[in-house]
């Protein structure tokens, strides 16, 4: 496996990199369009610091038009550091392309961290960053020298934690941005040797204590954590820390490690924006087992204990299963006869992965790009949510050409490397882990069964009735807030306005009596879909206006949106309003809901300034339809007055 710092899961930089950058630059100079796709294709390679810088300059010069193109999610990152992160900042715009984010940065002046964060009129606050990276090193936190009194050691850690927490609170209060906190990298040098681990107050002890308490006591749900300690250990501490660069420029890590550092920051930003990958698509022959099932037969393939090869493939399966347990969907895409491809799943004793774990199983002789599209479609997710693991370089290349948005790790031909490369690539970076995640793979599983039920039933009404759906509609509450924020930030397709709100915003909306909020859950006979829709209306005297309406595509075509409309219409009527209004704000991803209001019976009242359409529904003329589901409307404390009573709309 190639050097870790060269990001070996990516293809190496192309030999004509410089020429391609020049072509992009002169296209820009000549006033020709620089397309997001061209930049993203270049950024998808393992670039070094200078290459990231060159590409980043093009991003900077084209920022507005890239933003207008709408394929990347813009993020302004504030960097407040006690050391030099300029080179990381330089690497971020190009690195972000790899993760679907258009990163811009604003840095605090050297030595001005606390002022920038604690003064609401600082330049950092004025820039209104989306996130602020609070980068404090051990020296700045008073943890770089030993404290041999046990009490002093604990006090030093406590005061470092207090300082970090106060800066975090300052960013939230004065800047209103999300905060990225980080653990500290252990130094490479010891004072006592191995005994450092046993001396309260040795630098290693201080940093270990700080890191452990930071994660347990300081980092909150709405913060992001960059685990610098883990990153440095993965690289190797003696390699991560470069004393010369620390002394001459206050660089926190070796220059070679900057592309990796930047990649980790971008993963986190992308994950916070809901852009992490959702599904791992697995090849079979020589990926999940050694050999070719069609040729070698179930006794001939290499899998399981007893051979290095067999154990390596077993490790790939175990890792895939662990990913599934944390909410990543698994699919299979193999060139095989389906009957042959299924034999190991059914007959080989050492298979860790079972048929049940695979949400979509495609084994045929069609090209893999076509099959990957079918998999995404069956799961109702974008192809940009897929990671495709295949040992065959020709298949990888084909998929990269046809579907550049699919992540295809460059895994080489040694299966022992697969788990490491797949993990280090960070495709599935998470910023939360909750019950919904734990159940997600099962929910998608149930979805695949639903699709086959549809084929059998044939008639949509009968099918929907056969699902035995129970829909629960409730106003926002504390319990649902994290999931509400998650949906608000990652729903792209069924989303009328694509307005993003932080958890704090959601809390404010929940408390605002001028807002009418809905969180919608759906259970059916195949399982609990969890929260699948979030809606916010602004309640006026005459008119209630739709600020946000989004829904998970998992439950598309179930008439849930009609149930939602019936609910809000009843509430608005009861409150004396006469009309509901709404707007459709187009993005590259939400064309699905272009006719949403029209389908619900709204009349178009014109074009929206800035693009899109405006809609209105006369409540006097509206009657709620009969729907093939049981509906339970819950009322919250603030909504008691004018929420409709629970009503069963099933016939």
């Amino acid at each position, binding site marked *: 496996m190639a050097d870790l710092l060269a990001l070996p899961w990516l293809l190496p930089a192309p030999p004509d990199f*410089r020429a391609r950058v020049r072509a992009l630059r002169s296209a820009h100079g000549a006033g020709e369009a620089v397309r997001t796709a061209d930049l993203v294709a270049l950024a998808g390679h393992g670039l070094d610091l*200078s290459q990231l*810088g060159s590409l980043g300059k093009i991003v900077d010069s084209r920022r507005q038009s890239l933003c207008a193109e709408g394929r990347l999610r813009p993020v302004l990152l504030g960097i407040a550091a006690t050391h030099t992160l300029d*080179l990381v900042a330089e690497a971020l715009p190009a690195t972000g392309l790899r993760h679907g984010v258009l990163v811009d940065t604003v840095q605090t002046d050297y030595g001005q961290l606390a002022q920038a964060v604690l003064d609401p009129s600082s330049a950092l606050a004025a820039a209104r960053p989306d996130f602020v990276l609070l980068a404090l090193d051990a020296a700045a936190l008073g943890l770089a020298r030993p404290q041999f009194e046990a009490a002093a050691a604990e006090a030093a850690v406590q005061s470092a934690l207090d300082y970090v927490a106060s800066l975090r609170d300052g960013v939230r209060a004065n800047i209103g941005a999300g905060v990225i906190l980080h653990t500290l990298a252990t130094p490479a040098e010891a004072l006592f040797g191995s005994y450092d681990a046993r001396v309260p107050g040795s630098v290693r002890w201080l940093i270990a204590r700080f890191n452990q308490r930071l994660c347990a006591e300081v980092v909150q749900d709405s913060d992001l954590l960059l685990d610098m300690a883990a990153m440095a250990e993965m690289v190797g501490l003696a390699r991560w820390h470069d004393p*010369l*660069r620390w*002394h*001459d*420029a206050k660089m926190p890590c070796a220059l070679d490690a900057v592309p990796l550092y930047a990649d980790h920051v971008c993963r986190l930003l992308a994950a916070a924006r809901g852009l992490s990958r959702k599904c791992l698509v697995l090849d079979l022959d020589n990926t999940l087992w050694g050999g070719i099932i069609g040729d070698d037969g179930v006794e001939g393939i290499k899998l399981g204990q007893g051979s290095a090869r067999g154990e390596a493939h077993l490790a790939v399966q175990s890792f895939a299963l662990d990913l599934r347990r944390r909410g990543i969907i698994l699919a299979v895409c193999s060139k095989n006869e389906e009957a042959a491809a299924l034999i190991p799943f059914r007959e080989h004793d050492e298979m860790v992965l079972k048929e049940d774990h695979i949400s979509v199983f495609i084994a045929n002789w069609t090209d893999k790009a076509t099959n990957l599209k079918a998999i995404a479609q069956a799961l109702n997710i974008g192809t940009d949510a897929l990671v495709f693991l295949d040992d065959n370089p020709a298949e990888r290349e084909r998929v990269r050409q046809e579907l550049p948005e699919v992540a295809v790790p460059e895994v080489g031909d040694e299966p022992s490397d697969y788990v490491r490369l797949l993990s280090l690539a960070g495709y599935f970076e998470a910023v939360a882990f909750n019950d919904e995640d734990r159940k997600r793979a099962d929910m998608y599983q149930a979805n695949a069964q639903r699709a086959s039920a549809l084929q059998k039933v044939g008639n949509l009404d009968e099918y929907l009735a056969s699902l035995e759906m129970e829909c629960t509609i409730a106003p926002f509450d504390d319990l649902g807030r994290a999931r509400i924020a998650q949906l608000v930030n990652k729903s792209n397709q069924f989303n009328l306005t694509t307005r993003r709100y932080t958890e704090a915003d959601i809390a404010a909306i929940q408390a605002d009596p001028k807002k009418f909020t809905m969180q919608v859950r759906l259970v059916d006979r195949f399982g609990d879909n969890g929260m699948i829709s979030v809606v916010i209306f602004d309640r006026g005297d005459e008119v209630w206006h739709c600020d946000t309406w989004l829904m998970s595509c998992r439950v598309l075509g179930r008439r849930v949106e009609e149930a939602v409309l019936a609910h809000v219409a009843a509430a608005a009527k009861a409150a004396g309003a006469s009309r509901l209004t709404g707007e459709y704000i187009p993005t590259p991803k939400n064309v699905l809901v272009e006719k949403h209001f029209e389908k619900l019976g709204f009349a178009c009242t014109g074009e929206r300034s800035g693009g899109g359409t405006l809609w209105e529904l006369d409540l006097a003329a509206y009657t709620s339809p009969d729907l093939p589901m049981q509906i339970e409307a819950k009322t919250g404390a603030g909504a008691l007055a004018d929420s409709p009573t629970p009503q069963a709309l099933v016939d």
Partner: protein
Amino acid sequence: MERSAITAQLTEIMIDVFDLDELEYRDDLSAADIEEWDSLSNIRFMVAVEKEFGFRLSNSEIESLKNVGEMVDLIERKLA
């Protein structure tokens, strides 16, 4: 290694590091001649030289350099 080969390699490195379209090598080239050559890109430059030629530059060596010609001298000495 021939001095001309070193200057050719160094020119390539500088084009990459300072993100230039082209560069005509002169012994007396220095930070004053290249707009993108600042303290940060200077660090990138030193690290790129270390990687290319396979040795480490000390802080005092870096600080003693006045122009690119002296860098070539230093590389010649280190490779000798």
